[in-house]
């Protein structure tokens, strides 16, 4: 049999963002894949060094749409570490709530797109409708459907009064029943199983080799979660179960994401129960001395690391971040080999790649 090369991307109907895959195929089967990145590089890292610390809160939030809140939270944490700021206890809980609402919306979006790629659009619409509850929550509590604007240096800039707490609690409760149904469909539906079970397998040992993070790692049985390994904000005071699946295939990763939505809803309810009263941010405008810090968080796609160095001025001397998709997309080499051409978009989607924050 002869092999030949087909290009997928950088602009392709099945790809949500630009990425170039050079795929060697043997008939219908993928023999190897070459990944070529860099199509949406915008120089944001350099741009952050031209903007002051306040402007960067907004700028980092706009790196990525789906994990937008993880970026400013981690950035502010790094700044607070350098300045030695201890943020109020209530702010820690409010940061968890903001992060977990984004996780609900992000994970549901990814599993919905999975259904769409399979061609199961009625399921896609149903999951997106459930996700709409989270979107309405974000718009009601924070004022925007994507960019929450929840963070400031030294705390948060939104508060939950009794009315909003009731609303949030009700909406989370409302999602639970729908979510249980959706999880059941992803677990047991024959059409889903036909396209996703045993497709794009990343075995446990390969997952360790490639140091994948987030739901991709947990789908291959690696119980790594920054929220429990290196707790930040209020996570050490909350009960955070680490969700894992052992299949290592497209379905395992989707199931991890759906179960993590359930965990996220539970975490929001724990926060609402345990959150103390008090201030939501420190007063005044803090002075940021020269120094450097690393901050980590568990974004919806996995471990997000921020490195920040300051020189005593009001701008970062260097700001660098390592996003989870950077670790995950290399594992596509393993996942794609031996699969069919028609499964390529499905496998790419299963790592939930965020190309805009990886290439920034």
């Amino acid at each position: 049999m002869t092999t030949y090369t087909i290009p997928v991307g950088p602009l392709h109907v099945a790809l949500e963002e630009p990425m170039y895959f050079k795929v060697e195929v043997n008939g219908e089967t993928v023999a190897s894949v070459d990944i070529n990145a860099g199509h949406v590089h915008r120089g944001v890292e350099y741009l952050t060094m031209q903007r002051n610390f306040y402007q960067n809160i907004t700028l980092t939030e706009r790196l990525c749409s789906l994990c937008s809140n993880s970026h400013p939270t981690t950035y502010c944490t790094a700044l607070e570490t350098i300045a030695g700021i201890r943020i109020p206890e209530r702010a820690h809980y409010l940061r968890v709530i903001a992060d977990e609402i984004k996780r609900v919306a992000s994970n549901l979006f990814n599993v919905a797109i999975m259904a769409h790629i399979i061609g199961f659009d009625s399921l896609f619409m149903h999951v997106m409708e459930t996700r709409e509850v989270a979107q309405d929550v974000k718009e009601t509590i924070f004022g925007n459907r994507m960019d929450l604007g929840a963070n400031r240096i030294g705390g948060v800039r939104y508060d939950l009064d009794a009315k909003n707490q009731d609303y949030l609690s009700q909406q989370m409760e409302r999602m639970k029943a729908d979510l249980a149904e959706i999880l059941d469909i992803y677990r047991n539906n024959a059409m889903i199983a036909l396209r996703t079970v045993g497709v794009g397998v990343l075995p446990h040992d390969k997952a360790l080799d490639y140091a994948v993070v987030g739901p991709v790692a947990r789908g291959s049985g690696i119980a790594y979660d920054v929220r429990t390994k290196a707790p930040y904000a209020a996570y050490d005071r909350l009960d955070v179960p680490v969700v894992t699946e052992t299949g290592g295939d497209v379905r395992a990763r989707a199931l991890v994401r759906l179960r993590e939505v359930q965990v996220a809803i539970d975490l929001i309810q724990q926060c609402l129960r345990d959150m103390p009263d008090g201030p939501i941010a420190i007063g005044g405008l803090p002075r940021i001395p020269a120094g450097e810090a690393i901050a980590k968080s568990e974004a919806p796609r996995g471990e997000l690391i921020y490195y920040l160095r300051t020189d005593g001025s009001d701008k970062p001397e260097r700001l660098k971040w390592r996003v989870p998709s950077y670790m995950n997309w290399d594992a596509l080499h393993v996942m794609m080999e031996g699969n069919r051409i028609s499964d390529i978009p499905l496998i790419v989607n299963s790592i939930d790649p965020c190309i805009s924050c990886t290439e920034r």
Partner: protein
Amino acid sequence: MNMLMLLLRNLARGPSTDAFPFGDTFTPERLRGRIRFDPELCTGCRLCAHVCAGDAIHFDETDEGLRFTLWHNTCTFCGLCEHYCQTKAIHLTDDWHLAHLQQDKYAMIEQGVVAPAACAGCGCRMTAPVPALTALAYRAGNRRIEHLQTLCPDCRRKAGVTGGRS
């Protein structure tokens, strides 16, 4: 649950989308939309322009006073300006009707002029501290604070040295 049952249930529920533009649509109170500026409350500290990531806010001195200009087409509606504004002279309203014709793009601005005051001491032109700011700084005012508010920074320093007998 069986997918067909779920579809039947969704069919019975009817459409989930809003009827807009023929009906009302979901607009929560906290929505970050069109920006409104109140010159009566502005102290001219320019912190809003400092924190604005998109450089959408500009101040310039005009004959009428300090002019505030915000370009809605540059604004990201992040709300940092409102958050850091001590006197809340900037407010993000829940008005999201920002669609406009190409020819109107330069008119999509919010503008206001902070009227200058004359110093009660030397008569020079100054940006007067607004009552909202002194209320924040001193809570309950007194006659001395009220008097100091009418002075320019130089006269205020003089008044501080001489114990307010200017």
